[in-house]
């Protein structure tokens, strides 16, 4: 009887068994522990820095750096400030990331599609490429390209001429550089007009297809507006563009665009390494589209080319984009391995040389990490937005 009575009344659990109080207790313990940990770390850091005579603050950023940098996209010399070394490093990291992402995407998509090819030989070659380069550490690949391959190139005096004014030697790859003359701005304006026209054309074509079902050759017209139209204007305005060829002066080439071997090795290794991962992502994305989709579109009478463009790729992209973005992020973070071969990226210049010269470990580490954190948080929030936009709308 007593059992029944107690069962009918909802009993209050003891305080130590009440989930509400438990949660409160555990979280308070967590906060207290965390605060104590942070407090002791800050305290230790301050007293350690005092003992070593390190001053804090960002005043060092305006001081004169006094060292040169191998490659810089902006004006930099030994009189520039430490703050400017940060900018130089940041832009060099950006350069490697952009080049690497562009090339790795091309290679990765090509290899991913090749691995699914009906051609046995092509599929096997792509598999061999992926399995070899995915399983070798990136740093080792960078060393291999830099020390074993690029270091074996001839000296500037015996430089390899690859035609069209391109020179390739141990000091790097030299390309002819364009020099815009007066009147080139017309071409730039033409490009901008073409770009705006393209946006309007795409909108109009989309609307027309929705209303009438007729397709418009969007791809070709885009190509014409973005490249053909500016090129036509360029020809009409009398080709206001000079070309500067690299010339051997003394021990080295000057003029044109010079790509240092450090940059070449880094971009090559990043492209080949990340390309293998992107290829797997692309393959997984294409395989994720149900075979019924292919059969259904063939039953509707779509051509093979339309089938890929209108049915398979849009659905595969939904699967591919999220891991693809994380591969792009990985590539950007991996570009920090530049420091191992001396390419002046953010980590090498700022967290390396500048830190060693100034000793401002806390500030410099915080700034460097902030750059990478901002980039990755920004890109991942963009990706989440895209995911939401592209997610399947289910009933």
């Amino acid at each position: 009887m007593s059992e029944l009575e107690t069962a009918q009344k909802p009993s209050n659990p003891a305080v130590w068994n009440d989930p509400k109080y438990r949660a409160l207790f555990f979280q308070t313990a967590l906060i207290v522990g965390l605060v104590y940990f942070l407090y002791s770390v800050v305290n230790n850091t301050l007293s350690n820095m005092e003992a070593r005579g390190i001053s804090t603050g960002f005043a060092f950023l305006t001081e004169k750096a006094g060292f040169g940098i191998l490659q810089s996209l902006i004006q930099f010399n030994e009189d520039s400030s430490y703050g400017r070394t940060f900018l130089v490093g940041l832009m060099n990291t950006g350069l490697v990331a952009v080049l690497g992402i562009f090339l790795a995407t091309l290679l990765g998509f090509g290899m991913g599609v090749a691995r699914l090819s009906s051609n046995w030989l092509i599929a096997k070659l792509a598999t061999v490429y992926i399995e070899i380069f995915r399983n070798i550490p990136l740093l080792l690949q960078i060393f291999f390209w830099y020390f074993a391959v690029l270091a074996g190139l001839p000296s500037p005096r015996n430089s390899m001429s690859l035609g069209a004014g391109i020179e390739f030697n141990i000091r790097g790859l030299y390309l002819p550089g364009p020099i815009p003359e007066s009147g080139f701005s017309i071409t730039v304006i033409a490009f901008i007009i073409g770009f705006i026209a393209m946006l309007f054309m795409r909108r109009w074509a989309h609307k027309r297809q929705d209303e009438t079902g007729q397709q418009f050759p969007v791809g070709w017209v885009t190509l014409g507006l973005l490249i053909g139209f500016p090129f036509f204007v360029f020809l009409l305005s009398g080709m206001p563009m000079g070309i500067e060829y690299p010339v051997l002066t003394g021990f080295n080439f000057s003029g044109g665009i010079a790509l240092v071997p450090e940059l070449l090795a880094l971009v090559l290794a990043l492209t080949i390494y990340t390309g293998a991962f992107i290829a797997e992502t692309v393959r997984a994305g294409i395989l994720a589209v149900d075979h019924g989709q292919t059969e259904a579109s063939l039953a509707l009478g779509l051509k093979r080319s339309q089938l890929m463009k209108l049915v398979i790729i849009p659905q595969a992209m939904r699967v591919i984009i999220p891991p693809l973005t994380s591969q792009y992020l990985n590539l950007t973070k991996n570009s920090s391995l530049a420091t191992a071969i001396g390419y002046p990226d953010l980590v090498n210049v700022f967290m390396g040389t500048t830190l060693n010269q100034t000793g401002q470990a806390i500030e410099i580490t915080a700034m460097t990490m902030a750059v990478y954190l901002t980039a990755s948080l920004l890109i991942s929030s963009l990706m989440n937005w895209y995911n939401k936009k592209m997610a399947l709308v289910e009933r």
Partner: protein
Amino acid sequence: MSVNHVKGPDLPPPNSEVGIAGWMKKNLFSSYANGFMSLVAILLIVLLVPPLIDWAFWSATWTGETRADCDQDGGACWVFIANRIDQIMYGFYPAELHWRPNLTGLGLIALTIPFFIKSFKYKNWLGAFILIVYPFIAYVLIHGGSFGLEVVSTTKWGGLMLTLILSAVGIVASLPIGILLALGRRSKMPMFKSVCIMYIEFWRGIPLITVLFMASVMLPLFFPEGSDFDKLLRALIGITMFQSAYMAEVVRGGLQAIPKGQYEAAEALGLNYPKSMGLIILPQALKLVIPGIVNTFIALFKDTTLVLIIGLFDLLAIINLALTDSDWLGFDDEGYVFAAFVFWVFCFAMSRYSIALEAKLHTGHKR
């Protein structure tokens, strides 16, 4: 009245559809474009593979002692590797004490054998022993300092031995931390959740190299003066912190894939949180994400090469060091190809193992 149809014998398939010719027609030359690509691929293989094989095997020098034995022909000179094999395996570990890391490795291999014996009943206990007790035994054996073993300081550790130690410790330490972080991220308590999210996103957002820099430059600043950290320990802390964040995301994927009914059923059975997680949810979730976990291990194994930047001599750093030996200049190809081969064998084996394990553990319905 019925007509009896007698089936005639099957005609053999046309010659162009079977055998090598048929296979080639179907897989290599099904269309003009395909045929062209096949020819390009064949050309590529003919241009690349025979010279490579010739360099690595036929023209290579396999025997000899000194550099003079190498300069005969254009092939690879593996004498360079053979000459350095002790350093490549053990770093600067004293040669007369090599039996200690050897014993540690053999012990580990011997302990894993029972896992492949189906009738062995105490696999869980053995696993716990390997993961919890054996690291201490290994430390005592390799580092020494007790039981009358001579101390070998961590600065002398190197080569493949160091690479394996770094990855083994990283793996053993980052998995449990990663599981805790993943559980924390899915916790209903807001403080735990936000602390775990911050930790995970922070470590995932920065490159490992900055973590290692931080571990070597800033860690000494964070702790009271006089507390001296071993360089290897700093690298291990950095790698574990970094990798546990990635592990947490992998495990979270598994936790999210478990249907809600499993959580509710565990609660309905009256299991408390540790029991429902440990007995119901985690075994299923971890099984789901085994490929992801092994991929994280592979990434960690490859990432251990980065410790050369803070001055530890892992396999790659030892090869780099050997390449700067003035008696043996110009053997970069051999050195890097050998290192790449060693790393590749480990990583490839791990990825194949994960595929096999996935197939073995797949108890559901396979399409």
